[in-house]
């Protein structure tokens, strides 16, 4: 990643890995001297992304997720998730109809809209048979 203070972690592609990733990024944010106010939002982003990768890219089959975090500026954190599952761009998943009444509202499908709302930018690319999702999050004003 063309950024500074890069740290990485590789975890099994299973939802139980979420906690390891969130603890890892919380420690990184603290060590980098960023304010901790947005750590809960980061935890939310990480949970939603990891769960989506496990379910859709790997279809709950075994695999790994490489997880990178880095500072791209004095106020922005970049998170990158790399997996070797089938091609899966979660950014193209359709959002549920937020205006529907309770009876018509879809159950589920809220993870990616939450991620989109919490991050500054989100990009996806498929490279060398790997899905690469890059998110940038503003940690400081």
């Amino acid at each position: 990643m063309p950024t500074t203070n890069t740290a990485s972690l590789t975890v099994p592609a299973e939802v139980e890995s979420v906690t390891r990733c969130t603890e890892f990024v919380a420690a990184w944010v603290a060590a980098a001297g960023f304010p901790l106010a947005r750590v809960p939002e980061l935890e939310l982003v990480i949970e939603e992304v990891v769960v989506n990768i496990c379910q859709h890219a790997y279809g709950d089959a075994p695999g790994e997720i490489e997880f990178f975090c880095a500072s791209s500026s004095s106020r922005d954190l970049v998170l990158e998730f790399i997996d070797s599952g089938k091609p899966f761009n979660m950014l193209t998943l359709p959002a549920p109809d937020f205006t529907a009444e309770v009876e018509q509202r879809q159950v589920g499908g809220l993870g990616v809209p939450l991620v989109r709302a919490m991050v500054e930018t989100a990009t996806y690319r498929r490279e060398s048979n790997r899905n690469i999702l890059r998110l940038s999050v503003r940690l400081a004003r």
Partner: protein
Amino acid sequence: MECKLREIANVALIQVAGRIDHTTAKAFEDALSPHVAGCAGEEKILLLDFSGVTFISSAGLRVLMIAAKQCRKQKGKIALAALQPMIQEVFQISRFDSLFEVFPTVRAALQAISPAAVSAYDGQ
């Protein structure tokens, strides 16, 4: 995640505390389920006190959505009170704040949904 029940007149007040994420959503669903089943008409109104909830992800929203659908089917009422800022933000993004009645405090909720319950609450 912990849920404690407090019966106040015709209101089942569920005091929820902790994180509602992918690891705890099932326990939250199991704890909520019997109360949702009894949530019908004015006989039993469900109020979730979220003052102790520090985190919610889409896994938790899913449980709330299922509960809301079932309550609606039974013509019952479900409301929430005392959302912390992170939960409020998630509710605004997902527009759950327009699906659920959300009140700033438990007392404000009781006042709006059950005169009998607010009297009992004030008398305690």
